[in-house]
């Protein structure tokens, strides 16, 4: 039903902004597999956004080549190119004068879809991002909460079922609790649709939770390490990466341990519930947020306490660090 | 005449205190440095236009009717009348409307405020030519009638600008001043008026430019000014007379607006 992702190849890409001596992005090469969710993470001003925006040519590279599914993007009409790349930015950028339905229908309209097909697609997408079409389709953006707007932003980017999505700090403007919820929903969604996604963030925690692979970037978009979250946590390539991980490494590692890997206590019907396929980090977050003593694992027939979680963490540390 | 240069270079914002300079208007797109060469583009352009006018006049052979008006002493007399009407009325407006605006502000009564704003809106909707002619009919024709209708016509925008200018002073600033122990009078003179001055000055500038226009129609009630040339030129079908009258009055309007803008920029409190 949904179009699977395609590969993206950046090779020796450089961007020098007019009137600047130093390149914002220098000799950047990276290969993204089809269906992969790659996180760009790095400090402010390191060139994450610039690198990402060269892929849909919002910013034109000074040199180098970029291909999507083997096709050189520089040889395509930029407008046509962009209609097939989903794009989500931090400010969301919903058009305030259009209803939610009209916002989502923007690209299908540009592509000349029929009315019925567009309407069906809008309804389908609203349900995908857990918004009831009957309630939300005809509202205006200002009548939605920040988190709801952010979901519409994702739905809008998915409208024409693009194989590639570019996301620039899409959850950056939301409060921590909403952000976690959006991240969890987003992971589920991605498991279904399997798009190739480049996701920019400067929140390393977010990178660990979401990414299949993470590119840790420094000044001029230099790649310090490009690897899976587990490998980066276990083997930081250099001091720069270590310092970026900082003290939160243990907590972050929790995000990589599925609840299924841990022994459970007896269920407690009064406790809040967490999904069986969530990570320990999600369980811990729920404990913190609700202030409960334990959380139930839904369908799993058991519950988790702080003690269980810390035990799992100390057990996980040795083998990972040894590898 | 009732040409309202509204919020001169700011975007027009219509709601309540309509066309007059808006305290809430969006930031100006370009602000010229206080004194730069670009500042003098306007007077140079006006000088250029006048030079062209003069050269064109020299190529014409004027008949006796035209000679009667197109000579230095006639032009100077009309220009002088025009300027006197404009400047005296604007000065009177400043002397009357600003204190009235301050008074309206200080009584802090919703009713007074609503009255002033409503009056301002009606004043803005009133055609200047109607005011001038009405006054001439119920009273008399001549210079004084023109002067009074000019003052009446320009009074409301300045009054309203004074009121809204004072009202838009940030509440926290006012409270901070009171908190330091300033008396209400000191707050007015040291804080509120300086902060409101750009809006008040913008109102005066509008009034000045209005006056140039309204002074032109003073000719209808025999109050002289450059309008005489325009009206006579039209009556006698003498195009050169119309052109000279119209270009001179336009030049005066543009120069006065320019000079007022210069003064506005020079006296605006630094930091605003």
């Amino acid at each position, binding site marked *: 039903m949904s179009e699977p992702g395609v590969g993206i190849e950046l090779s020796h890409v450089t961007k020098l902004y007019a009137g600047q001596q130093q390149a914002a992005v220098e000799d950047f090469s990276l290969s993204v597999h089809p269906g992969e969710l790659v996180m760009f993470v790095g400090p402010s001003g390191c060139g994450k956004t610039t690198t990402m925006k060269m892929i849909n040519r919002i910013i034109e590279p000074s040199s180098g080549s970029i291909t999507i599914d083997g096709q050189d993007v520089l040889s395509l009409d930029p407008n046509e190119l962009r209609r097939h790349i989903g794009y989500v930015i931090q400010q969301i950028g919903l058009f*305030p004068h259009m209803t939610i339905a009209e916002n989502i229908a*923007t690209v299908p309209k540009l592509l000349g879809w029929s009315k019925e097909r567009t309407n069906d697609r809008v309804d389908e997408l609203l349900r995908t991002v857990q918004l009831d079409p009957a309630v939300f389709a005809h509202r205006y953006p200002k009548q939605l909460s920040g988190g709801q707007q952010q979901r519409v932003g994702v739905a809008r980017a998915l409208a024409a079922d693009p194989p590639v999505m570019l996301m620039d700090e899409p959850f950056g403007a939301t409060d921590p609790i909403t952000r976690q919820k959006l991240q969890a929903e987003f992971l589920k969604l991605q498991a279904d649709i399997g798009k190739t996604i480049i996701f920019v963030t400067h929140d390393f925690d977010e990178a660990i939770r979401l990414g299949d692979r993470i590119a840790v970037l420094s000044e001029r978009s230099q790649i310090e390490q490009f690897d899976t979250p587990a490998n980066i946590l276990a083997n930081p390539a250099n001091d720069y990466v270590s310092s970026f991980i900082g003290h939160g490494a243990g907590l972050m590692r929790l995000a990589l341990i599925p609840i299924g890997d841990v022994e459970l206590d007896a269920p407690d019907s009064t406790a809040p519930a967490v999904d069986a396929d969530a990570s320990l980090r999600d369980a811990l977050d729920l404990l913190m947020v609700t202030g409960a003593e334990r959380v139930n694992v839904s369908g799993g027939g058991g519950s988790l306490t702080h003690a269980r979680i810390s035990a799992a963490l100390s057990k996980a540390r040795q083998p990972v660090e040894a590898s | 005449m009732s*040409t309202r240069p509204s919020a001169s270079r700011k975007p027009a914002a219509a709601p309540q205190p309509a066309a007059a300079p808006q305290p809430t208007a969006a930031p100006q797109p370009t602000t010229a440095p206080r004194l730069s060469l670009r500042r003098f583009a306007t007077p140079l352009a006006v000088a250029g236009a006048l030079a062209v006018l003069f050269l064109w006049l020299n190529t014409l052979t004027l008949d006796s009717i035209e000679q009667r008006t197109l000579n230095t002493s006639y032009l100077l007399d009309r220009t002088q009348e025009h300027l006197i009407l404009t400047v005296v009325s604007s000065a009177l407006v400043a002397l009357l409307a600003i204190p009235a605006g301050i008074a309206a502000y200080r009584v802090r009564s919703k009713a007074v405020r609503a009255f002033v704003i409503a009056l301002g809106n009606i004043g803005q909707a*009133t055609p200047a030519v109607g005011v001038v002619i*009405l006054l001439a009919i119920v009273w008399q*024709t001549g210079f004084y009638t023109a002067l009074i209708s000019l003052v009446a016509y320009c009074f409301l925008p300045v009054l309203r600008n004074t009121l809204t200018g004072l009202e838009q002073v940030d509440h926290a600033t006012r409270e901070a001043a009171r908190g330091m122990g300033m008396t209400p009078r000191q707050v007015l003179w040291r804080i509120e008026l300086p902060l409101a001055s750009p809006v008040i000055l913008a109102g005066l500038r509008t009034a000045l430019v209005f006056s140039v226009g309204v002074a032109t129609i003073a000719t209808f009630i025999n109050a002289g000014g450059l309008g005489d040339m325009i009206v006579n030129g039209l009556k006698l079908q003498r195009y050169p007379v119309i*052109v000279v009258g119209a270009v001179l009055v*336009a030049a005066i309007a543009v120069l006065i607006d320019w000079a007022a803008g210069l003064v506005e920029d020079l006296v605006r409190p630094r930091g605003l």
Partner: protein
Amino acid sequence: MSGSLDVFLARRWEDLVTLTLQHLAVVALSLAIATVLGVLIGLLVWDKNVPRTAALTAAGIAITIPSLALLALLSPVLGLGWAPTVVSLVFYSLLPIVRNTVVGLREVPAHLIESARGMGMTPAKTLISIQLPLAWPVIVTGIRVAAQLTVGIAAIAAYVAGPGLGLYIFKGLSSLGSVNALNFTLTGTICVVLLALLLDGAFVLIARYSTSRGLRV
């Protein structure tokens, strides 16, 4: 000294209605032309520094020119009546409309424009379907200011035989001393005031109903 107003009105109300409608017509026509022209100019110059500054400066200077002077200059070229009236009303309407169009277009947040471009809208399409609707409330305000301006100027245009209520205002002057002088000027002036206020009210409604619900506060 003056004839009674009710007798005057009873005898001339049809005349007054015609003049009021003429006044409204010439203002509406001029505003329509000025809106098309002004928005077009705004769309052409809003993102180019030099043309934008030039357009705004020119319009700013133009609006200071007294209207009797402009009408007088136009009449030898355009004759008398509607033509010089409409041209001068358009002339004075341009500043508020162009200025507000430019400001409105420039105030559209950069991230909305980037969103539109990022979705594959061409620059022209972005301008028409994103920026223009978002700038519309500001543009309507400009038109509203222009409306107030032109209702008053149209009264003066009667001096060059322009249509509308100015005729009555000037009739009072030309019949100075006669019984009906005051009645003529007074009714003319009051009708202009009422027309201006009504038009202003109409613009509040126009602004409301022509603006997307998503933008209304």
